[in-house]
């Protein structure tokens, strides 16, 4: 597909057209079980990111750049660590929400490594047969807001309240050490939303 006239200098791709290795990694359009116990379709359409430099140079909002959603580590599948990389189109919507949050707190909102988009093959995820919204590109793990590290109950609770106030409809995990809870970052997501941009 050609580049679109939507201000984003990235190629829009149908995941079904990716190489076999990449399809096995990103599983475009496949129906999987979400953490909510229900079936959801994984994203089918992606933006192609040619390089880390391009990710840095691509703003998705005035204070949110694409690279912030693409920091992953060695636990990510090899195909999803090589360039070009592919990010679900819904990441653009997440970035808009993060911009609202950033404007509200008046400070940088930092997303952890592995805390933006993760492919469904990322090894950090539990192999219990369920899939997290991170695989839809609709989730962010915030580890720091300005100079505040989100690693205790007070700081996580404080910014959880902020998120719920300025981003109605967002889901935020409660503080705690158990499954579905967080105690060293703030997880927010917009569920299993897929984006099919014009021209897809």
């Amino acid at each position, binding site marked *: 597909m050609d580049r679109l006239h939507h201000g984003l200098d990235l190629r829009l791709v149908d995941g079904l057209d990716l190489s076999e290795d990449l399809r096995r990694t990103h599983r475009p359009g496949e129906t999987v079980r979400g953490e909510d116990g229900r079936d959801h379709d994984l994203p089918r359409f992606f933006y192609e990111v040619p390089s880390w430099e391009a990710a840095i140079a691509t703003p998705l909002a005035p204070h949110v750049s694409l690279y912030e959603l693409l920091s992953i*580590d*060695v636990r990510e599948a090899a195909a999803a660590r090589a360039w070009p990389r592919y990010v679900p189109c819904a990441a653009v919507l997440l970035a808009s929400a993060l911009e609202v949050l950033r404007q509200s707190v008046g400070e940088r909102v930092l997303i952890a*490594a592995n805390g933006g988009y993760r492919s469904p093959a990322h090894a950090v995820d539990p192999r219990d047969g369920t899939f997290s919204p991170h695989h839809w590109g609709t989730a962010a793990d915030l*580890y720091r807001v300005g100079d505040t*590290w989100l690693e205790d109950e007070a700081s996580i609770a404080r910014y959880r309240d902020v998120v719920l106030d300025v981003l109605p409809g967002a889901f935020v995990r409660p503080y705690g*050490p158990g499954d579905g809870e967080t105690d*060293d970052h703030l997880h927010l997501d917009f569920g299993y939303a897929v984006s099919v941009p014009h021209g897809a």
Partner: protein
Amino acid sequence: MLDAQVRQIAEDAGASAVAVAVRDLETGEAATVDGDRPFHAASTMKVAVLAALLAAVADERHHLDDRLHVRNRFRSAADGSPFRVAQDRDANAAVFAKRGRTMPLGTLAEHMIQTSSNLATNLLVDLLGVEAIREATARWGGAGVEVVRGVEDEAAYEAGIVNTATAYGLVGLFVGLEEGAGLPDEVRQFGLDVLFGQEFASGIPAGVPGEVREGSRFAHKTGSISTVQHDAGLVYLPDRRPYAVAILTEWEADATNGRRETVASLSRAVYDHVTHG
């Protein structure tokens, strides 16, 4: 001769237990004093973690420039409960400063060995897994070094799940590294370079006479907790092949004075044994 010297130094210092092992790669000679006695490994276990990382790189399961998420959250080997490495108990601030971001595996290995970063250690243990560490230890000839968990896992400590090491086992690990351990040259050299960069020099290096120390190199790893003070590594004196040495000492928790000096004295005894027979 070495045996008597070691026991005298230990008695004079008031140590609860001491073990020494040495193997001279120049002559092939070896000596040991209680070399099979297990001690709490403290940070000497980090040599086994390094062994596992080098093995993973050699097998192309990982690369030294692969990046790892720096996250201070681990699960206890005892009950799976979450725990963190206390920042005020870690000599290394650089790794803590990267929380939330990523660091290359090779850089984490340097921090783990050279400044004994516990956070870097647990990150690597988490990635590699205890089983891979045990396999690499065996592959290097480190039988006697038993790694069962990361560091600062208090719940595991309370449950008696403890990393242990013998002097003989640590010497085996270092001999394995010096002799290649099946590693490609560049991977082996990286491992040695990391160990050469050790910043704590009060143990084995301090026992080598000053005029000789200037022209020598030391690839070693220290370890200490409230009850132990260890040092183990390779000593490269000028114009000869190295000797591998491990010095393990155990103390009453309140006996905090003179530990490092004792390790240095034991290192001097080993140096004399190797160089004068």
